């Protein structure tokens, strides 16, 4: 490398006047120095960022929503006119915190918070499971964080999106052509209220005066646009507005549910039996418990399950869903 550099310098020296050459060399050196300093700075920044765990990263949530059957519930008078101009679909999404129940563990939900907290405070519990006295540890449930938000989607009944508009005419003229084409009732069009046209992207939003015209036009994917000398087929699609409301990141804490561990030795027992016995134990006030809502236990072998040979081993984890305290 150094040899090449020297050769280059020699060639340069021969071809260029000395003064300019000196300046070029200086500039090269300067640039090289700055580049080196920049690398050092980048390293320092990376180190500090890691140290401070700077969370400027954005994360993505991608969810498929299961198909839900809907039914007519009621008729209302619209609060304002804007509700009449679109079909709105809104719902709440809750990406639930969950807990992976391991073998030998159980979750118990009490009716009252104080009972759950008391059970946790007592830490060790001796529970009689048939002829075995098991030492069970009570702990709070460690939960993952979750996200909650409301989605509102509005499909317009008076507006449509138009795309693939050819770039043939100046702005104002194309706007007029769009209006003329879309008010032709023989193609399903109707009286146009206004046209928003973006020449650069070849797209437009057409607002009709009457509801119903949009639905009619959207029955087909294309529509004829007459531009004077020719007819083009432009693409039409619904005009949809999407809103996100009440977005919240949270960490779920469970005040009424307690994690019980230490039941690994209870293999070969029926899960339901153990759940019942645990429930009975913790219902008793003298055991520090109270009214029990739900018990879910995960044991090593589920008696009653038949596994063909040894192919299907029972799964190691059971994912338990937690839901909001307030929903029914």
């Amino acid at each position: 490398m150094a040899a090449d550099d020297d050769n280059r310098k020699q060639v340069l020296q021969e071809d260029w006047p000395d003064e300019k050459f000196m300046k070029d060399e200086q500039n090269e050196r300067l640039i090289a120095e700055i580049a080196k300093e920049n690398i050092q700075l980048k390293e320092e920044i990376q180190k500090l960022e890691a140290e401070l765990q700077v969370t400027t990263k954005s994360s993505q949530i991608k969810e498929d929503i299961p198909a839900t059957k809907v039914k007519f519930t009621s008729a209302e008078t619209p609060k304002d006119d804007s509700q009449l101009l679109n079909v709105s679909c809104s719902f709440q999404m809750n990406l639930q915190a969950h807990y992976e129940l391991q073998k030998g563990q159980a979750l118990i939900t009490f009716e009252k918070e104080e009972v759950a907290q008391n059970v946790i405070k007592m830490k060790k519990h001796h529970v009689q499971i048939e002829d075995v006295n098991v030492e069970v540890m009570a702990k709070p449930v460690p939960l993952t964080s979750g996200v909650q938000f409301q989605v509102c989607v509005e499909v317009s009944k008076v507006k449509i999106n138009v795309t693939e508009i050819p770039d043939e005419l100046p702005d104002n003229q194309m706007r007029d052509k769009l209006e003329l084409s879309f008010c032709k009732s023989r193609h399903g069009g109707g009286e146009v209220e206004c046209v928003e046209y973006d020449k650069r992207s070849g797209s437009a939003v057409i607002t009709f005066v009457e509801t119903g015209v949009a639905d009619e036009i959207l029955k087909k994917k294309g529509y004829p646009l007459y531009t004077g000398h020719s007819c083009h087929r432009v693409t039409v699609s619904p005009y949809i507005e999407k809103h996100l409301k009440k977005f919240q990141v949270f960490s779920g804490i469970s005040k009424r549910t307690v994690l019980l561990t230490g039941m690994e030795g209870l293999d070969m027992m029926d899960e339901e039996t153990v759940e019942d016995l645990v429930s009975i134990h913790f219902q008793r006030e003298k055991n520090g418990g109270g009214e029990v809502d739900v018990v879910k236990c995960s044991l090593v072998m589920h008696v009653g399950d038949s596994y063909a040979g040894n192919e299907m081993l029972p799964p190691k984890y059971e994912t338990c869903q937690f839901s909001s305290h307030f929903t029914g």
Partner: protein
Amino acid sequence: MEEQARLKMRLQELKQVRQEHRDFPQIKVPLPVPEIPLVFRGHTQQGRKVPKTLVSNLRICYPLPGGSALVTFDDPKVAQQLVRQKEHKVHMEECRLPVQVQPLELPMVTTIQVSSQMSDRKVLVSGFPTNLKLSEEQLLDKLEIFFGKTRNGGGDVETRELLQGGVMLGFTRDGVAQRLCQIGQFTVPLGRQQFPLRVSPYVSGEIQKAEIRSQPVPQSVLVLNIPDVLDGPELHDILEIHFQKPTRGGGEVEALTVVPQGQRGLAVFTAESG
């Protein structure tokens, strides 16, 4: 060289943040989030699958134009049979009303993509006592007043929203959110008392993509272009009688909503339970 200037500035920023963290060690990194109480109700799934997200409060609102009606039948087959024909004639005593019958399709979101990022202009105010006797509007007003004042470290409030874990406040200018988060704790008057509230950064979300599909409502049909000859209650009765008759292709009617000419209505659809 420009890059170097930029890098030097970034380094300076970070060094400053580190210094601040040293001075105020109670500021936790990463981002503190509000806690929402959850409870286990017995729903489990085998294996390590992440459970399906919970969708609730599904509500679809469909505007009904004047001179229309929405008929919901007990049996979806009745609705299916009726919509095979577009033109119908509703029998009245002396004459027949020509109407159009159409199936109903509603938009439903099938996939959603949301990106979340720590916002540089929004904060989360939390630490409210549970027995606060203020309405949502009152609470939001009082917070906007307090955090709108520069002498409290705040600035012009652009957006505000009540959330389950606190209140989100969005400011018009840069820098306000950062300043408030650095201060962290505030004593805010809410009504006659003062309360210690906490301000932390807010992670905001934005819809990147939402795929929508039309789904049919099997039990309902739309009746359109009803001639304007009867008033509301009369029209309701005539339609109900007509659509109940199996001889006219009808069946047991579960619900019937009529919107006379000159009026407007909104039909609300919710998730079928069970």
